[in-house]
């Protein structure tokens, strides 16, 4: 353990220039640490300051930033996260993906808070990190290999099974929009085409191993607060704690189906007639052999499966979860669980994001079933709903950009839909061009509104708004100020305040770099622990209110980045289907999003965020957050919000 004056933070940013082939260490500043905390906070600040308008996402000036948080690698619960940020290939705005596993802790143990990669290497390379040694090495022998092969080779070559490898597969190499960056075989930093950005830079992988450890300021309070937190969750969020520990995210198939929120046949419906074939009962009866967890995890939600008989006999995989069951199941009308399990593992190997890949496929399936795409477009494949025999072949085509269909899907559904035109655009279920997974906005309305205003485009994780259906109305009244926010069907103005609150508390997950599953039904878990953990770990006194200011600051930096890229209010709307088509079946039957009320919500949301009615940040708000330099820049660009 090195005494460099830092507690919690490692104190060093690693700067990699692939064009020049250089790796340099830069000291972290106190201002950066205290004002932006870490993880997504650091990444978004660096991205705003260094990636200028007009930058080509696939060019040398785009950055790829790997960020850990101050609690990453400590004993704070579920601390194994890190964020990868970039100028999004998919939205043209800010993009990021967040992953678990042990890569983040290993970065910290090696002595780095953040790795900033720029430039383009003339040949494939990987970044080798072992404590103070950080250097670019030739990756010609790895190019063309999938994620699992790459990981195995690097571990073997370095004779170190404790090292963590973050790598791209063929999807990233082939600049596929749905590509992810995978670490430890099955953990994905996904969305924004982060894998494609890494591929465009010819950076195949980062291998990292460290033995330096992390100093914490008050080990006793770190320990005490951790025990208190676990006791709180086990006692006050009993159902969640017990059930999630037992099943992991596959439990959401049953849960969301009951809520009428399970995306089915490209979001036409929210209830799938064969959901019971994809849920926890068949999964755990037949396939799951054990479970694994990320760094510091108290749940171990990651199921490890093996298929013992039938056409997929011998397949093993880890981390297959809800998004695979719904993505390759209900979204495509497929009820074959084994096909979903194998599809999930194929995504891990190819370096594909389950959500983005299955969303592009759902769009193609609907276009095919509506007669918009023909067999000429699909290379002869029959994309009828429920035809599970072609799902793996389509994934392979997507990863390798093969044939008409592979090339089309590789664009992502928004760009593919624009290319086809007409009704195809209606079937592209994207926000700001980003595909999303999880739950149908027609029956969890704040969750949906959170999709709309998310700074990285359509995404459930910016808010991860489970409190909409898990807080009791009494808890909602106390913590959000309005019990109406508990009504998941009605889009009342209370939802704007709820979304702002959850965006802020979820930012704390992304900046401390803790898993979002540590905050679920217990409001106290969101409010009482982040500032206490930060204070105990870093020695800098933080308060709940002070952290709200940090969250407001980063959300506004992210918004300003997007505004500078040309986004405003027009980009904060949902896909048209959710306003026009009422849910046809299930517990949410008849529900759709009221567009007039959605507009009122945007007004209210911008007001509480300090932005004007076009969604542009105001000078008064920017200056209050210490962002005068952004106000000055936006003013020069005539993009500053109007004061009331």
């Amino acid at each position, binding site marked *: 353990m090195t005494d460099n004056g830092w507690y919690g933070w490692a104190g060093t940013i690693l700067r990699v220039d692939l064009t020049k082939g250089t790796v340099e260490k830069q000291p972290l500043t106190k201002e950066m640490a205290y004002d932006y905390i870490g993880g997504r906070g650091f990444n978004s600040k660096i991205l705003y300051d260094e990636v200028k308008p007009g930058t080509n996402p696939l060019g040398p000036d785009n950055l790829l930033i790997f960020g850990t948080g101050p609690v990453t690698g400590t004993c704070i619960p579920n601390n194994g996260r890190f964020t990868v940020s970039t100028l999004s290939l998919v939205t043209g705005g800010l993009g990021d993906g967040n992953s678990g596993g042990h890569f983040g802790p290993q970065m910290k143990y090696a002595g780095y808070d953040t790795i900033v990669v720029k430039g383009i290497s003339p040949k494939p390379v990987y970044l080798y990190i072992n404590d103070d040694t950080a250097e670019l090495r030739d990756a010609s022998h790895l190019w063309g290999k999938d994620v699992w092969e790459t990981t195995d080779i690097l571990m073997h070559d370095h004779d170190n099974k404790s090292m963590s490898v973050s790598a791209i597969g063929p999807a990233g190499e082939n600049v596929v929009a749905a590509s992810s960056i995978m670490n430890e075989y099955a953990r994905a930093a996904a969305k924004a085409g982060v894998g494609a950005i890494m591929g465009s830079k010819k950076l195949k992988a980062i291998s990292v191993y460290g033995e330096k450890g992390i100093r914490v300021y008050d080990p006793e309070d770190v320990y005490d607060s951790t025990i208190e937190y676990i006791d709180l969750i086990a006692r006050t969020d009993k159902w969640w704690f017990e059930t999630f520990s037992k099943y992991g995210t596959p439990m959401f198939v049953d*849960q969301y189906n009951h809520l009428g929120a399970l995306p089915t046949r490209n979001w036409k419906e929210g209830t799938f007639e064969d959901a019971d074939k994809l849920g926890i009962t068949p999964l755990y009866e037949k396939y799951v052999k054990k479970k694994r967890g990320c760094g510091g995890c108290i749940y171990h939600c990651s199921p490890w499966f093996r298929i013992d008989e039938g056409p997929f006999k011998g397949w093993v995989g880890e981390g297959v979860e809800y998004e695979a069951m719904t993505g390759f199941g209900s979204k495509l009308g497929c009820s074959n669980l084994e096909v979903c399990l194998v599809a999930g593992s194929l995504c891990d190997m190819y370096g594909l994001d389950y959500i983005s890949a299955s969303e592009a496929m759902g769009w193609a399936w609907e276009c095919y079933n509506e007669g918009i795409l023909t067999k000429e477009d699909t290379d002869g494949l029959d994309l009828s709903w429920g035809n599970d025999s072609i799902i793996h072949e389509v994934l392979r085509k997507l990863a390798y950009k093969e044939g008409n269909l592979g090339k089309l899907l590789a664009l992502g559904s928004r760009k593919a839909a624009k290319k086809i035109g007409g009704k195809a655009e209606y079937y592209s279920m994207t926000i700001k061009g980003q595909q999303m997974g999880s739950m149908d906005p027609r029956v969890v309305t704040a969750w949906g509104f959170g999709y709309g205003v998310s700074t990285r485009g359509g995404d459930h994780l910016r808010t991860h708004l489970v409190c909409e259906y898990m*807080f*009791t109305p*009494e808890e909602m009244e*106390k913590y959000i100020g309005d019990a109406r926010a508990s009504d*998941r069907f009605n889009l009342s103005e209370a939802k704007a305040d709820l979304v702002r609150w959850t965006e802020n508390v979820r930012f704390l997950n992304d900046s401390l770099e803790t898993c979002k599953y540590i905050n679920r039904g217990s409001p106290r878990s969101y409010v009482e622990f982040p500032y206490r953990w930060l204070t105990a770990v870093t020695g800098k006194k933080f308060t709940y209110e002070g952290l709200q200011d940090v969250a407001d600051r980063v959300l506004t930096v992210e918004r300003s980045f997007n505004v500078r890229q040309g986004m405003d209010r027009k980009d904060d709307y949902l896909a048209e289907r959710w306003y026009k088509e009422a849910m046809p079946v299930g517990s949410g039957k008849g529900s759709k999003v009221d567009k007039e009320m959605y507009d009122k919500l945007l007004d209210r949301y911008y007001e509480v965020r300090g932005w004007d009615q076009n969604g542009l940040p105001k000078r008064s708000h920017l200056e209050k957050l210490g962002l005068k330099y952004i106000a000055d820049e936006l003013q020069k660009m005539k993009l500053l919000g109007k004061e009331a």
Partner: protein
Amino acid sequence: MSEKEKLEKAIERAGLQDGLIGRSHGLILEVLEKGNFCKSEIFDQVKGRNYLTAPQQVIRATDQLVEIRAAKSVGTRKTAYAEIAEEEEVYQITDRGKLLLNQLHAQFKTFDR
């Protein structure tokens, strides 16, 4: 210590003071006054009232009632809600629950809003 004081202490110990026990708990206790039910059955009887629109809200509120001993588990049975448990627990109102229900009736004209 009176039963009323014991109830207050239990609520405080569970961190549920300051209005965190309210109409939702009253609705659940009203259902349990009619008979013993599991959480999904309780939800089916209260859904749409006091903004209760998801089973998970009723699961949490019922667990809170169990924590302050206003309700107790009296067995299990299999239901359709696989995500809640393989077999759901069945709950019964306690004497303390009846006391709490009376207090909530006195506090609120109606549990609906």
